[in-house]
């Protein structure tokens, strides 16, 4: 059932998947009970000769109990979902942990412009390096991504990280993640941004510590 999810490689992705599954089971059971009840009523109370319908207006409290009691249950389940959601949301969007690596991702129709601050860790200095569509980060490190847009709204979406954030032009938006597995994954744009929206594809390279060091050394050999 949940195999359809892309695999999860972020620290908070599990929390998100957990809430999804929680809701799935809660409303799934509610859904099944509801549909079965309808099916049962429809079969049981189909028109038969000589059988009259019952007159039940449902305007009196004892009768209303039949629908209000399940409703209270729904209310309770809703609150459960709310609290579980709040907790997971806090893990993703709450206080941002101290980052180890920072990169800037700037979107424009229809490319991701990725800027690495270089060894000094500061943007807008001479050692900045800009690449198109390739985001290289180390595994098991907190990465802070500074999102900017040069034209319209785009959305930074990495399915395997369960991370999605719209990027508003004229503002910067920060997100973070910590990947738990190495590999090469796809970055997608999730907000309609023009005719090339579907081509706005980038790659997230998650390197092991050694690989990442090698990659750094290759780009900034002077170090």
């Amino acid at each position: 059932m949940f195999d359809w999810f892309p695999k999860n490689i972020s620290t908070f992705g599990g929390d998100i998947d957990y809430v999804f599954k929680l809701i799935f089971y809660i409303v799934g059971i509610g859904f099944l009970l509801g549909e079965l009840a309808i099916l049962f009523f429809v079969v049981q109370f189909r028109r038969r000769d000589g059988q009259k319908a019952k007159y039940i207006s449902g305007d009196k409290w004892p009768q209303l109990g039949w629908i209000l009691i399940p409703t209270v249950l729904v209310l309770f389940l809703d609150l459960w979902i709310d609290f579980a959601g709040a907790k997971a949301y806090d893990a993703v969007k709450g206080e941002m942990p101290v980052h180890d690596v920072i990169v800037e991702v700037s979107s424009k129709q229809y490319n991701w412009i990725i800027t690495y601050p270089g060894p000094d860790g500061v943007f807008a200095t001479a050692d900045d390096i800009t690449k198109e569509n390739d985001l290289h980060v180390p595994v098991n490190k907190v990465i802070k991504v500074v999102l900017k847009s040069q034209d319209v709204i785009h959305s930074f979406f990495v399915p395997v990280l369960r991370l999605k954030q719209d990027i508003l032009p004229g503002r910067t938006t920060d997100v973070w993640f910590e990947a738990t597995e190495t590999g090469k994954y796809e970055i997608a744009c999730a907000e309609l941004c023009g005719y090339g929206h579907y081509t706005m594809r980038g790659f997230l390279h998650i390197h092991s510590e050694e690989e990442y060091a090698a990659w750094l050394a290759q780009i900034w050999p002077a170090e």
Partner: protein
Amino acid sequence: MAEQATSEVQHTEQMSFVRKYIFSVDHKVIGKQYLFLSLFMALVAGTMAYYVRWQLAWPETAVPGAGWIPEPTAFSGIIPPEFYNALVTMHGTIMVFFVGMPLLLGAFGNYLLPLMVGARDMAFPRLNMMSFWTIFTASLCMIASFFVEGGSAAAGWTGYAPLSADPIYTGVTWGLNLWIIGLALEFTSFLMGGINFLTTTVTMRAPGMTMLRLPLMVWMQITAAVLFMLSVGPLVAGAILLLLDRTVGTGFFLPGKGGDPLLWQHLFWFFGHPEVYVVLLPGIGAVMEILPVFSRKPIFGYRTIIWSTMVAGVLSFLVWAHHMYVSGMDPNLVMPFSITTILISVPFAVIIFAFMATLWGGSIEFKTPMLYAIGTVTTFIIGGVTGIFNGSPPVDIFIHDTYFVVSHFHFTLFPSVFLGGFAALYFWFPKMFGKMMNETLGKIHFWWTMICFNLVFIPMFVLGMGGHMRRIYNPMQYDFLKPMQGINQFITYSAILLLLGQIPFIVNFFWSMFGGKKAGDNPWNANTLEWATTTPVPHENFDTIPTVYHGPYDYSLPNQNEDWQPQHLEKEPAAVA
């Protein structure tokens, strides 16, 4: 009065064809005009859905039946990305604003409301006529937008700025302007309609028709009208600003000129969420009329349903930002909006449970309208509960702008617009056209539509869980989507079948209209006032205005011979057993 009525009848007979059928002020004719408009637009938007689906299943191959579209819009049937975006945008816009609202509010609201409250017409018949011709013009704007240079609007039906605010971003020039103007006209049309609905219901009811004796369909229509009127204003303001950005060169939504792109989203969704209930309520309003008639039972909890609707209506103004969880708005506001969003399931749960309770103990007859009513309820539950997934912010981070959301909203909109709409059409067709529809064709249509609808949209949840983005022209662009392409093709096959499934309906509709069995005044033995008058309904609706003695749902009263009790007849004395 009677004298005046006869003179007016004679007067009508002398009226020219144009006055009688085109620029008519009769709510019944106007209702039918809305009906034909919405069915035509359904055909247009349904065809667009077909083009969209083909492109998604077999990207960049020639779409059969699209060869007629001239270059540079399409290239011998091959749809380029610009046109794809335009198709999706216009499919959504037309389905919601030019099919959903004109069908449920325009056609059934106009046709039924005066009949149900026992009035001779709407309070402002000429305004009513204007509202139709306004939406007619709006439809022309929408259709014309395909033929102007640059093609039609391609910024999504939500028209997010700045993509929509400056032609350089999409290459669409007048197409999008026409889209804005068309929408503004549509809004004006329904504002006029809403004034009529409310005023008619409040002031024109027949003697004895208290507010709590109104059929629920009327309650749903006027609640929808109020929701619409109170939510659309800010978006009208926004549309004017957007049009100025595009044409004059102001920068209300352009950050480069000091504007704020997020503002459009707030304005759109402040309207957009109440709007989805504007479409939903009349749809389930029809269900509320049909369930009691075909189970011969009162609707369960008449007042409770009205209260729940009002609670949902109020809440609907406090949830709009659930469309914007990942938009970059203040994250502290996310949880409050999430709580109101998820709580809105409570009033809807009450309504759904009331429907179930109505079935319980009934004597259910499966005529086509009843099948559609039950179908509406069973499928809407799926749409409703998947709204809970969207409403949970962490889950929405992942599923936002994926096919999970696409499927959610088709599972809510399709039941109310098409399943609810078909239920209403099969139910009121005898009154509207004086003929019965064919039952066999109706049942074929129902099962075909129901099954194919589910086959189209349930797999979309799977796509969404797999992370499949919406509004993408070619899914094969992404490696992680390639394994799911089979599902996309399956959906497209089902969608084609779904469209073909409408053929029995079209045949039935026209064939019955001209050659169907003649309908009696009250073929379903229903209580409400529209069945109290003759078929075909006379000019000014009732020969004498009926007096109302009790509520609309007194079916199977104990100690009575008949299992129904029309609203305009006094209760017969208890039958001697």
